[in-house]
């Protein structure tokens, strides 16, 4: 009998442990007074007093970056890899229920960010004042800390040095039916934004078609952009949960008829570690893919605001190395940032090859694109 | 010591079944009262209401004048505070405690410290001759031992009132006799008020100071055992108490069966009102058939010719079945009757041993001589 009581008490004590943690975090966060000039030292001091930083990032590198941050400033970071929709869900719920547990997010859903989360005050955009001249104006609000090309890639062992495709319209052809791997648009807001941007650039798509086939495009949908999307979706595009999986599938050695994929350039680092045979489709027209931004923002009411600010500043200055230098395929917006030599060019070079996403259009068309995908891409 | 008073106590189960109906009963302090009756007569329900485990729908229950329950005023003293003792038919010993644990539980509730509890437990176990069982668990005990433990548990807290609900019905005959004697001894020694529920009239007769006979929720008679036996207040009581049961003689319209009419003539005082006449087998004597044809009421004795139909030896006595004036009657003989089935004999009984009942079954004034 006593044993039972002890067990029950123990069980509740364990539970209380968890509850206490959240209770501590629920204490009203101190809002620091805005300093007249930016004082890095003071920021560091304030940050150190606050305790462990909680971060959700779309990249798994957040763990390494967090460790480096701790080594440099002595502030622990609890970094978790989390997909965009889940991040959005958490932020909204936490802010609405006034139980904010996360401080900073690395987030790729630009449209939602610009259209909803920033205007309605769920997130706070903080640009480190002393880096203002190192970050291009366009990338400051909302703050981008990482640019990645998301590109079409192929298996060079199967197809040789010459890419098997030179024009995006080839992806609508029967030869590639069921052989194109992309991240599930329903789970990848950036892909939806990409398709929305295509749909709002009909002239570009029409010209690309003419260049490729030397014929005029027969448009049955609303415009050339939608026509492309329809044919593309109907070509049995295979959806894969992550870029890494796409890279593995496309680049696996020993494949005679390898698929092609749409993935972030960084996956090509696995060529060395996993013996993959990935290569980009250089010179693809009218674009090789799109420029995927990752934004860094603070949550409104974050329990550790100064640590969050320090972290944001860190990844914009020297903290971005695990992404941009150690591995290839990602770029910091910071003009002073070092870059990996294998990148096939600088960010300026890449910008010219990639489609830039239009967040406003993307948000407006999001539901329509999603439905279009469900209609044409999911129904067999 | 304590007296119990029930006034107008009524309990219904559902809307139809009347378990106890308007019961008025006063149990004197120090008495040993048996609630006797067949199954379903309300005796256990009454006991539980005294204990407080069931609540009456109407009425009042008092203990030494103190109200335990009153529908009128809404007062209700819960079971835990009544300080009574109760032994269940199934004993309800707690299987997860030792005998000592079971017995000392009530003492714990009273707030006694460990030393005093231990002493009292030992004392009570000794009283019931089960001292050596203190460390055993109920599952390891025999029926009789469990019963004693239940008694010990009840007695340990020295309650004013002891309530027992058919405590001996699960025991074999020998044990039952022992326990009956034991209980009577305890009553003599400790002298508490005891309320004892049973359907066994032998138990009621042998152990109690008064018996309350109940039937279909109503009190039939409340009197000392011998009164119940000799002067049953109504037909129900008369038929229930006594083994073998009382012979019942009713008017029969058929010719040649005029026994009732014959007997009725012998009691002119009850003429007109008498509808049933009873006489116990032990009051009937089988005698030789001589001079029986003479006046049936010789002096204060009734005697008639009868034919022996069966003789049933029980070992300690003989039950003789006879036919008189077309009626079948049973007589009890403590010595072997000097007759065999088929013999013509005579049956005799003192007039004052006949019981007269009216149309409602109620007892009529004692039969006197004519």
């Amino acid at each position, binding site marked *: *009998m006593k044993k*039972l009581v002890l067990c*029950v008490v123990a*069980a*509740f004590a364990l*539970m209380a442990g*968890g509850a206490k943690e*959240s209770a501590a975090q629920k204490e009203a966060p101190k809002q620091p007074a805005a300093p007249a000039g930016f004082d890095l030292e003071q920021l560091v001091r304030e940050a150190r007093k606050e305790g462990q930083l909680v971060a959700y990032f779309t990249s*798994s590198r957040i763990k*390494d970056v967090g460790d480096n941050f701790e080594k440099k400033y002595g502030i622990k970071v609890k970094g978790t890899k989390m997909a965009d*929709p889940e991040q*959005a869900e*958490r932020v909204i*719920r936490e802010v*609405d*229920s*006034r*139980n904010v*547990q996360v401080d900073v997010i690395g987030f790729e859903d630009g449209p*939602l960010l610009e*259209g*909803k989360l920033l205007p309605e005050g769920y997130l706070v955009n903080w640009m480190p004042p002393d880096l203002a001249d190192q970050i291009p104006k366009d990338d400051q609000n909302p703050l981008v800390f990482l640019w990645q090309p998301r590109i079409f890639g192929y298996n060079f062992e199967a197809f040789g040095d010459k890419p098997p495709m030179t024009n995006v319209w080839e992806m609508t052809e029967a030869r590639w039916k069921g052989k194109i791997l992309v991240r599930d648009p*329903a*789970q990848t807001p950036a892909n939806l934004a990409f398709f929305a941007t295509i749909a709002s650039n009909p002239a570009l798509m029409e010209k690309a078609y003419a260049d490729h086939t030397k014929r005029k495009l027969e448009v049955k949908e609303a415009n050339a952009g939608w026509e492309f999307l329809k044919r593309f979706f109907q070509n049995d595009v*295979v959806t894969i949960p*992550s870029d890494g*999986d*796409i890279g*593995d*599938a*496309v680049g696996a050695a020993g494949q005679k008829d390898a698929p092609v994929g749409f993935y972030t350039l960084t996956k090509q680092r696995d060529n060395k*570690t*996993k013996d993959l045979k990935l290569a980009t489709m250089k010179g693809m027209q009218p674009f090789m893919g799109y420029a995927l931004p990752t934004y860094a923002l603070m949550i409104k009411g974050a329990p550790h605001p100064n640590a969050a600010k320090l972290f944001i500043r860190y990844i914009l200055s020297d903290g971005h190395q695990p992404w941009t230098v150690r591995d290839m395929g990602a770029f910091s917006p910071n003009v002073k940032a070092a870059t990996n030599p294998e990148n096939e060019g600088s960010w300026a070079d890449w910008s010219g090859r990639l489609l830039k996403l239009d967040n406003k259009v993307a948000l407006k068309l999001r*539901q329509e694109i*999603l*439905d279009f995908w*469900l*209609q044409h891409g999911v*129904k067999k | 010591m304590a007296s119990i008073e029930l006034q*107008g106590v009524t309990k219904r189960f559902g809307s139809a079944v009347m378990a106890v109906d308007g019961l008025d009963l006063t149990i004197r302090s120090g008495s040993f009262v048996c609630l006797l009756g067949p199954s379903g007569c309300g005796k256990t329900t009454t006991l539980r209401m005294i204990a407080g485990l069931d*609540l009456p729908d*109407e009425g009042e229950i008092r203990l030494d004048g103190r109200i335990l329950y*009153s*529908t*009128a005023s*809404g*007062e209700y*003293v*819960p079971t835990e*505070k009544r300080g009574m003792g*109760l032994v269940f038919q199934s004993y*309800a*010993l*707690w299987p*997860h405690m030792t005998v000592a644990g079971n017995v000392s*539980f*009530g003492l714990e*509730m*009273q707030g006694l410290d460990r030393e005093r509890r231990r002493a009292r437990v030992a004392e009570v176990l000794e009283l019931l001759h089960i001292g050596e069982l203190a460390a055993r668990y109920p599952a390891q005990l025999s029926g009789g031992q469990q019963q004693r433990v239940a008694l010990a548990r*009840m007695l340990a807290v020295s309650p004013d009132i002891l309530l027992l609900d058919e405590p001996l019905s699960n025991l074999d005959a020998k044990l039952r006799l022992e326990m009956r004697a034991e209980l009577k001894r305890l009553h003599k020694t400790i002298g508490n008020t005891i309320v004892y529920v049973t359907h066994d009239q032998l138990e009621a007769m042998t152990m109690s100071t008064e018996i309350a006979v109940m039937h279909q929720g109503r009190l039939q008679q409340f009197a000392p055992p011998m009164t119940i036996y000799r002067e049953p207040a109504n037909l129900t009581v008369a038929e229930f108490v006594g083994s073998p049961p009382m012979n019942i003689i009713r008017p029969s319209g058929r010719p040649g069966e005029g026994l009732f009419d014959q007997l009725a003539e012998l009691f002119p005082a009850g003429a007109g009102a008498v509808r049933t006449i009873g006489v116990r087998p032990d009051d009937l004597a089988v005698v030789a058939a001589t001079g029986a044809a003479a006046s049936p009421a010789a002096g204060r004795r009734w005697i008639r010719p009868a034919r022996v139909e069966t003789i049933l030896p029980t070992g300690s006595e003989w039950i003789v079945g006879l036919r008189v004036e077309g009626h079948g009657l049973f007589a009890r003989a403590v010595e072997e009757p000097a007759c065999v089935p088929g013999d013509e004999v005579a049956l005799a009984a003192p007039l004052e041993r006949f019981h007269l009942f009216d149309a409602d079954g109620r007892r009529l004034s004692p039969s006197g001589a004519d």
Partner: protein
Amino acid sequence: MIRAASGAGRLVPRLRMWLCAVRSDPSPIAAALLAAALVWLVLAPIGSMLIDTVRVQVRDSATTGLRTGEWTLSFLQRTFTSRVSGVLFWTPLANTIVVAALVSLIALPLGAGLAWLTVRTDLPGRRILSSVMVVPYMLPSWTFAVAWLTLLKNRRLGGLPSFAESFGFAPPDWLAYGALPIVICEALHLFPFAFLLFGNALRSVDTQLEESARVLGASGGVIARRIILPLLRPALLSAFLLIFSRVLGSFGTPYILGSGVKFMMLPTALYGSFKIGSPGVAAVIATVTIALGISLLALDVFFVREFKRFVTMGGKGSLRRAAPLGGLRAPAMLTAGAACLITTLLPLASLLASTLMHRPGVFRLDNFTLDYWIAAAIPAMPGQRGLFLNADIAASAWNSLRIACAAAVICGLVGLFVGYLVVRLPSTRLGVFLRQVSFLPYLVPSIGFAAACLSFFAVARGPVPSLYGTMTLLVLVMAVKYLPFASRSGISAMMQMGGEPEEAARVCGAGWLRRLARIVVPIQKHALVAGIVLPFISGMKEQSLVIMLATPGTEVLTTQVLRFVDYGYSQLANAVVLAIVGIVFAFTFILEKLTGSNLASGVSGTG
């Protein structure tokens, strides 16, 4: 003669009486409070979900252009009648029904056949078969799915090759993913329930019925058809409805095997809508799932009165004539043995094998490794360590244990308390109501219930703060969902105990709390343990409930598995599955030894 005054004059004394009675025995008040709490915990979330089907939430306001908080029928329209409703809802619904039907078609005969072999024939080793058949209950429902991928997936989703591929065979899409594997895996997981239900039913069929028929000259076949089968009809119907409702609420298997080929069933459709950020549509799907589940199981309750399922199989041990198998002995043993192997050994063995190899199915010495169990760093999985060194997995395991333990203890205690109250107030309306309400959570499919609770508890309500992201929410939802099991065993245990031990304690002067603590609970030790162990096992392998509720701070082993599957870390995922199974087995074994109780008899009562 005292007769009480009539009418209004009785009000004050009656009130006084009631107060006194209730102070000594607060059961009616406790029952009322508990019933109210359960109603709130079950019906309020469902009500909140109903509201969410017509009210715009933040995520939806971004995509639909409607304002947050506005009332609208657009979600209903989108789910049921829009151009995409087929993809979002109707096709998953049809898929679910078809899968459930096929699963029943396989699982029922299989379960019934094995049950008959075990109970009615002289099959050698049938006792072993009986105890082995409890094992699948201890495996998470999606274990088979994970094992299937390990054995039979193909290149469509990339990643590590399967065993089949390593042996040179490329399974076609329809074999590797989608409807066929889902049906087979669900059938393998669910047929033990049919086995247990039929076994119970066969055991409780009074052989005297058969024997009288035999005496009257009926042949074995006639007896089977005219006497046994009709008696088994309730069990048949019950098993069918149970299987159907399980398929309805099961998330793991369709997720693992269906998403890659876009074969959606209701649970994955619900989850998908939720994850995309269409909470309105998710709410509609969840409501339909809940309504379906409730109807199915309510049917079950009405056709097979609940208590019949828990008839104690005691009886006078009538001699049962075991039908001799004769020539069928060998095939029967083969079938039974195969069933054992396939449902228990095969999945576990394949999982274990995969965790020991870099590339599954490549049987070269340099391919074997203990990396995934004990390495400090795994090159293919940045930031991850082998299972025994992995801080994330350890944290998840700790969370799983904490949550399952807490929920189980609450369940056990409350379940016993419900049993106590229901038995103390048997025929009053309150007692009946409490009994029915405590059964309510059983009717709601897990994933639907989790969605409803998330929607309801994510917002602060009065004195109760928002429980979003807290462990409390997980414990609460689990405890409520498993309460029916605990309260069933609590009720039957209390009925067996009867009222007299407690009354004896009352007479000895013990108050209500004292009686509960010193008499009722100690006597019901075994029932309490059963009421704790079974929810604990269920909690450790629960995925459908937690998948909607767990967050990074409250990650548990079952959600960790899905994360690993999503990342493509197959070996780690499989290792975690084995860890779950290991923990469940270990705890069950320890508890059985400690309390001397037998799990199989407890499991057969729950289904």
